[in-house]
């Protein structure tokens, strides 16, 4: 190895200076490594994780991006959609049917650390990260980007299958279900239907009636756990179900642990 040779008097100044002189001439007559930043910019790779952008036509407002955000800097904001946007939306017809307003993500970039989880876990591919990185602002308020400012329109929409990256799906405890169908109203992918459930169930107020229970289509369930959050009777909980292997309507007890 070159470093094992004897060190002589030439190694005080002369030999080290050979290296620097060589570099001096190389960068004087060639091109230095650095770039003049505001004038020249380097090209980020296509995978670059820069500022977020949301393809609104693909977004179904499920809120998974806010769920997986480690810093909780991403929040779903109720947004008024215009008729045209309503029509173009992938699940547009369904959005119109829902009782609640459509929700779209808004990001506080002062807290964002660009980890890319929102992009990775988005079930429809609506959340994307651009190669734009010059986000500096003079105020903290300027870093809060409202939902509409994140909107991008693509001329051609990639039609991706719904994917459950959360690896979990809701399970119903039919004994406590009161059949309010709130989960159906709020499900962003319309994967729940109400059907025949417990017959002659005795409710708390003493009345006895037939209660409809929700049934889940796990092929299009994205594991967003919205139904669990809105359930007034706490009859739903999340359990690991691999959506690629199991499909069809399943109820508690039939599922094997993943």
């Amino acid at each position, binding site marked *: 190895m070159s*470093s094992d040779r004897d*060190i002589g008097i030439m*190694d005080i100044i002369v*030999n*080290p200076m050979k*290296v620097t002189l060589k570099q001096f001439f190389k960068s004087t007559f060639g091109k230095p490594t650095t770039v003049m930043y505001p004038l020249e910019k380097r090209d980020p790779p296509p995978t670059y994780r820069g500022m977020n952008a949301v393809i609104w036509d693909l977004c179904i407002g499920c809120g998974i991006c806010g769920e997986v955000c480690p810093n909780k800097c991403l929040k779903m904001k109720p947004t008024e959609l215009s008729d045209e946007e309503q029509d173009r939306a992938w699940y547009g017809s369904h959005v119109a049917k829902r009782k609640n307003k459509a929700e779209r993500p808004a990001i506080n970039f002062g807290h964002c650390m660009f*980890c890319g989880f929102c992009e990775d876990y988005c079930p429809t591919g609506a959340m994307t990260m651009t190669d734009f990185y010059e986000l500096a602002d003079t105020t903290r308020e300027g870093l809060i980007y409202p939902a509409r400012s994140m909107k991008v329109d693509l001329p051609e929409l990639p039609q991706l299958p719904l994917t459950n990256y959360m690896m979990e799906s809701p399970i119903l405890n039919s004994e406590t279900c009161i059949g309010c169908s709130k989960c159906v109203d709020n499900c962003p992918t319309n994967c729940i239907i109400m059907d025949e459930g417990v017959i002659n169930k005795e409710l708390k107020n003493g009345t006895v009636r037939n209660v409809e229970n929700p049934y889940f289509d796990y092929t299009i369930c994205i594991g967003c756990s919205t139904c669990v959050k809105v359930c007034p009777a706490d009859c739903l909980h999340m359990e690991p179900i691999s959506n690629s292997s199991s499909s069809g309507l399943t109820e508690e007890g039939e599922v094997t642990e993943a």
Partner: protein
Amino acid sequence: MAEMWISMGPQHPMTHGLWTLKVKVDGETIVDADPELGYLHRSVEKMGERRKYFMNTTLTDRLCYASSTTWTHCYALSVEELMGVEVPQRAQYIRTIMLELQRLASHLMWAGAYMPDLGHITGALYFWRDRELFLNLLELPSGSRLLYNYIRIGGVKRDLPDGFEEKTERILKLFEQRLDEYADLFENSKIFRMRTEDVGNFTASQAMNLGITGPNLRGCGTKHDLRKHDTYEIYEEIDWEIQTREAGPGYSDCFSRYMVRIDEMRESVHIIRECFKNMPSGPTMASKVPIRASGEAFRRTEDSRGEALMYLVGDGSDRPYRWKIKSPMFTTISACPHYLKGYKVADIPSIMGSIDICIGETDK
């Protein structure tokens, strides 16, 4: 001159982070030293207990900004043991490549930070210029330049992009050429040797007693590397050797610690080439990754700075019940009175720089 205490830090060029070194000097000679840690404590372990398993890779990235992939990998290994996830073969190869690229970047970061300690600004810029090459490589698949978040539980985020192997090979060739070029400027320079040789000595047995691991221990001539001894990923399948150096029989000085890292960089280049040689095809992510786990898991890996240990307890929920990180630098810095005494004030940056301080992982 009478004896006096000098407080170096928390804001001091020598510290490479936030910590205080109090030294008692007699004239210019160090009589006693007292390190003070904890300025950068962010309670990573407690924060991790509030987040889901998969979210914690962002925290482990930030344990040490110079070597984020290795720490994330240690976390991913321990969570995979906890959950019993089998990582596909291709993902293991990609992980090994990424780990070695990260080790190169980390060692270059260290070498660049070490040179200004000796008053050699040019060295910093040379090494950091080369580090840029590896950051460019790491950026290609992960999409970020510093905090990659690329290694995930159960595999890696995405497959390597097209042309990655050719780009890597080109950069590795350039890097090896440059390392040979730098030999005259650094390790063969007389003044560099005057500053580093026979300074900051500790013996191998002393190092083991004090818990000093990694390149600092290998600088004493001890062949200890967890990549071989507690092997993980594909390190046992490929052909490589543990690099050691010693200043004398069984002890190290700043120069041997410098040289062992330079040798390790050459070895990392070799490992990356070996990985590309027999890389299988297949998936890069395990098919089933649960998000809940119970039980306990413990893994240790060879970080760029020594042994990284992680201990995890799960209680069946989707968040860890207890998470403990053991950082190699915590013990090494705490042992600094043992190898600082008797040297000059001007040697402090030279010695403390040579052990490769990273305060992020030390204070957690």
